[in-house]
């Protein structure tokens, strides 16, 4: 409906004279009207344009008005549908209301009756638009599992809302701990596939030999250990969403199979011959710079273009301003309850440090830091002396008035701290030069070793606080030892 109150209407009525009559009725209500006699004509019209109001006869020569109603509700849910029926089909009209029609008219009806219903429908549309505009104008401090009202996150919420109902592939990028899986789930939950399955697969956590079977499933005897037929993620996510996390870890051979699956919607199970066709919405994610992976030949360019249709860039925590406060308080409440503690808040100094720290592990790191402080301390206020080592470094910078914006280099003194989870040289900072880059495994090693030290050598406790399993720590320790003996990348 435009500002002058003119709205568009499509009448589907097989009788020419009734169509002409209803057209006059609606024109008197300032409608711009199109009349078609057949259901098939209506479907063609709807592909070209969508009216504000659809006046639909239940009984049509070529199809049932109920089928058209179902089609409109599925593909054009914003259209208000008014059904027309005769006495004999009142039961159908009731069914139509249940199926989402706004109202129904019993033939013959006069202009006043139609006018009354149309005005109600327009009023309802106006209210719905108003509510929607109002909701969109409000900043949200939480959204489908996310917490934060920063401009960066509002933009993310908007994209999620806009893409949710589309089938277009979404590609989520962001540093580790920024919430890529939360984002993928939000897309699924907000969209029209919410009642179907959301299947998440982490391509990095599954051995390369098994990942094809994990995605496509396998038939009995396909390989050693395949003792029965097994559905893969592709089958399980039929009509739903398939989330492929850490997609860059997928090897090239499997990438080409995935490409074919995305292109055709069909695949074969490992060891199978039958083509399975599914309707899947793809969401992928990586913390790598995907285009660099393409340029390096590690990621197929054609697959990149298939997956990277709608990109979503999740902002790092350090760029999210006040969200750090919102998140900190949320986690404080949550962990207080879980750990049976009674912290009421953070000291101003801690808040200041939180604000200036670069949070290389993003929200996940903030979670861990707060849990660590709550588990290891008993008080009513989180104070600065409870901070873990890597944040204490920030305290010293603040005390020395040495705080610099996070995008500036901040060289550290080697002797500042000997308890930092990151060595003083490795306090996260904006990299300016290649020599500033340290291997990821090394910072991980230092984090883990320091956590073990803080926990008095108690590996299981350190593992709990790091939110990884103790066996992961042991496995990594072995790899580091091997690495020290022979120079190779020990990443696991």
């Amino acid at each position, binding site marked *: 409906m435009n500002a002058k109150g003119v709205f568009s209407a499509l009448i589907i009525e*097989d*009788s*020419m*004279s*009734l169509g*002409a*009559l209803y057209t*006059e*009725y609606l024109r*008197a209500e300032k409608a711009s009207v199109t009349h078609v006699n057949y259901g098939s004509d209506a479907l063609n019209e709807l592909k070209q344009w969508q009216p504000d109001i659809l006046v639909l006869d239940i*009984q049509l020569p070529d199809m049932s008005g109920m089928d058209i109603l179902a089609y409109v509700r599925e593909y054009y849910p914003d259209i208000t549908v008014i059904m027309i029926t*005769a006495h*004999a089909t009142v039961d159908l009209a009731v069914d139509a209301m249940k199926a989402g029609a706004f109202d129904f008219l019993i*033939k*013959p*009806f*006069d*202009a006043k009756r139609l006018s009354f219903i149309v005005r109600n429908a327009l009023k309802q549309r106006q209210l719905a638009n108003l509510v929607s505009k109002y909701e969109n104008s409000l900043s949200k401090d939480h959204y489908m599992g996310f917490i934060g009202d920063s401009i960066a996150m509002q933009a993310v919420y908007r994209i999620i809302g806009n893409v949710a109902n589309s089938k277009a592939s979404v590609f989520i990028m962001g540093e580790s701990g920024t919430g890529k899986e939360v984002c993928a789930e939000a897309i699924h939950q907000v969209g029209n596939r919410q009642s179907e399955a959301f299947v998440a697969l982490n391509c990095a956590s599954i051995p390369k030999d098994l990942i094809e079977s994990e995605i496509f499933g396998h038939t009995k005897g396909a390989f050693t250990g395949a003792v029965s037929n097994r559905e893969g993620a592709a089958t399980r996510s039929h009509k739903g969403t398939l989330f492929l996390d850490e997609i860059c870890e997928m090897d090239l051979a499997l990438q080409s199979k995935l490409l074919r699956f995305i292109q055709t919607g069909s695949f074969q199970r490992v060891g199978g011959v039958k083509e399975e066709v599914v309707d899947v919405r793809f969401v992928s994610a990586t913390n790598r710079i995907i285009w660099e992976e393409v340029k390096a030949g590690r990621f197929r360019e054609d697959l990149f273009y298939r997956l990277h249709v709608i990109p979503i860039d999740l902002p790092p925590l350090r760029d999210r301003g006040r969200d750090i406060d919102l998140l900190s308080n949320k986690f404080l409440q949550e962990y207080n309850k879980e750990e049976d503690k009674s912290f009421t808040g953070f000291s101003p100094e801690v808040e200041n440090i939180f604000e200036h720290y670069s949070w290389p592990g993003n929200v996940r790191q903030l979670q861990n830091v707060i849990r660590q402080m709550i588990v290891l301390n008993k008080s009513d206020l989180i104070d600065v002396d409870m901070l873990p080592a890597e944040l204490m470094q920030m305290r010293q910078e603040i005390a020395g008035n040495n705080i610099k914006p996070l995008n500036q280099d901040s060289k550290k003194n080697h002797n500042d701290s000997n308890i930092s989870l990151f060595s003083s040289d490795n306090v996260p900072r904006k990299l300016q030069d290649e020599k500033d880059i340290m291997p990821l495994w090394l910072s991980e090693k230092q984090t883990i070793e320091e956590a073990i030290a803080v926990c008095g050598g108690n590996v299981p406790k350190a593992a709990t606080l790091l939110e990884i399993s103790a066996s992961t720590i042991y496995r990594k320790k072995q790899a580091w030892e091997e690495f020290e003996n022979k120079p190779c990348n020990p990443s696991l």
Partner: protein
Amino acid sequence: MTAQILANEDSLLDEKILSELVDLVGEESMARMLQVFLTELKERLAILNEIYLWINKESEGYDKSDGSKHRNIDFKEIEIQAHTLKSCAGSFGASALFEAVKQLENAAKSEDLAFVIENILKVEKFGQLSKESLKQRFMMSK
């Protein structure tokens, strides 16, 4: 039955409906819409007439009151035509025609051949009468 038909003839058109339509759309649009209605009426009466001729041919030598003997008669089509005509007649104030097609629709639904024949004739009669009456009222001056 004759008395009922005569009674219906007396109220061939519903003046209230017609006046409301004129008030809403104006005389000119009303004449245009009625032209569409009369064209449609003519087409649908022609279909009913064809079926009527078919019925007469099919039912030669049979008892017309015995519907079971006339399985080739397209009662469904009669019902569809009557159903649509009913809505049109009701909407354009052709009240006598409305009553007649309502009866025809019911007769077709119950596949009562004698009742169908009786009402097809009534529909034909009131269709013509309504047409003349509407023409006289709205379109003769044009």
